[in-house]
């Protein structure tokens, strides 16, 4: 087991954690969504990187090639990308509505606004 053999996993982990960190630590609704998509994107690498064969080729069957990269993860990740962009679109739509309803996209300010309105009611 060499460190290099797992290099690709570690990069994945780094990206994943950075994305997640943005989501948890940042209060801006839109930045959270950017973090969320980075988090999701890093998962793509987790699936796809191990499927690569050095000396292999893209999984399109043709004469003269025998080694192909694993196609199944590609399919799964295509689906995951689509899900990711769908979530992003929906999240942004909600963020826009929040902005219109509260006049802010900072989580702290919104929570404070809610507390005020509850206190006043």
């Amino acid at each position, binding site marked *: 087991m060499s460190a290099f053999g797992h290099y690709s996993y570690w990069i994945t982990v780094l990206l994943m954690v950075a994305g997640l960190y943005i989501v948890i630590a940042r209060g801006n609704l839109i930045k959270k969504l950017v973090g969320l998509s980075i988090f999701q994107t890093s998962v793509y690498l987790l699936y796809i990187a191990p499927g690569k064969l050095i000396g292999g080729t*893209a999984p*399109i069957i043709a004469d003269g090639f025998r080694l192909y990269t694993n196609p199944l993860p590609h399919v799964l990740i*295509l689906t995951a990308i*689509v899900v990711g962009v769908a979530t992003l*679109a929906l999240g*942004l*739509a909600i963020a*826009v509505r929040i902005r*219109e309803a509260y006049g802010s996209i900072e989580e702290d300010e919104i929570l404070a606004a809610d507390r005020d309105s509850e206190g006043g009611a």
Partner: protein
Amino acid sequence: MKRQMVLRVVGKLFIPYMLLFALYVQFHGDFGPGGGFQAGVIAAAAIIFYALIFGLPAARRLAPDPIVEAMVALGVLLFAGVGVAGIVLGGNYLDYFVLDGDPVAGQHRGIFWVEAGVGITVTGVMLKIFYMFAGRGRSLDER
């Protein structure tokens, strides 16, 4: 934006080719990279460019809202309908083998229609989402 002649001319020239390219990606997906999803995104991008250059109302004339919304639903119906066709013809759900006398030809036919369904829905949704965001901004500015 309207004064930028170069942009408009280049846009006029390019956008048909982008749509053509989308069709190529759509139907060449069997042999090279590509397929319904990518084609849908490219087609939607072409119209979004059109909207950026010529303005949103122009794009809405080119691809009116009701048609886009119908596309969103029709694509899913087409895909799911292919599945139901499988049952009607005596196979399982999404069974392409029974779509044609020859199983392999049936597979090919199934994949073709399914990819078409994907392409239609994705184009519709991407455009619709863009219209929604862009249209929202406009009405806000006017207020």
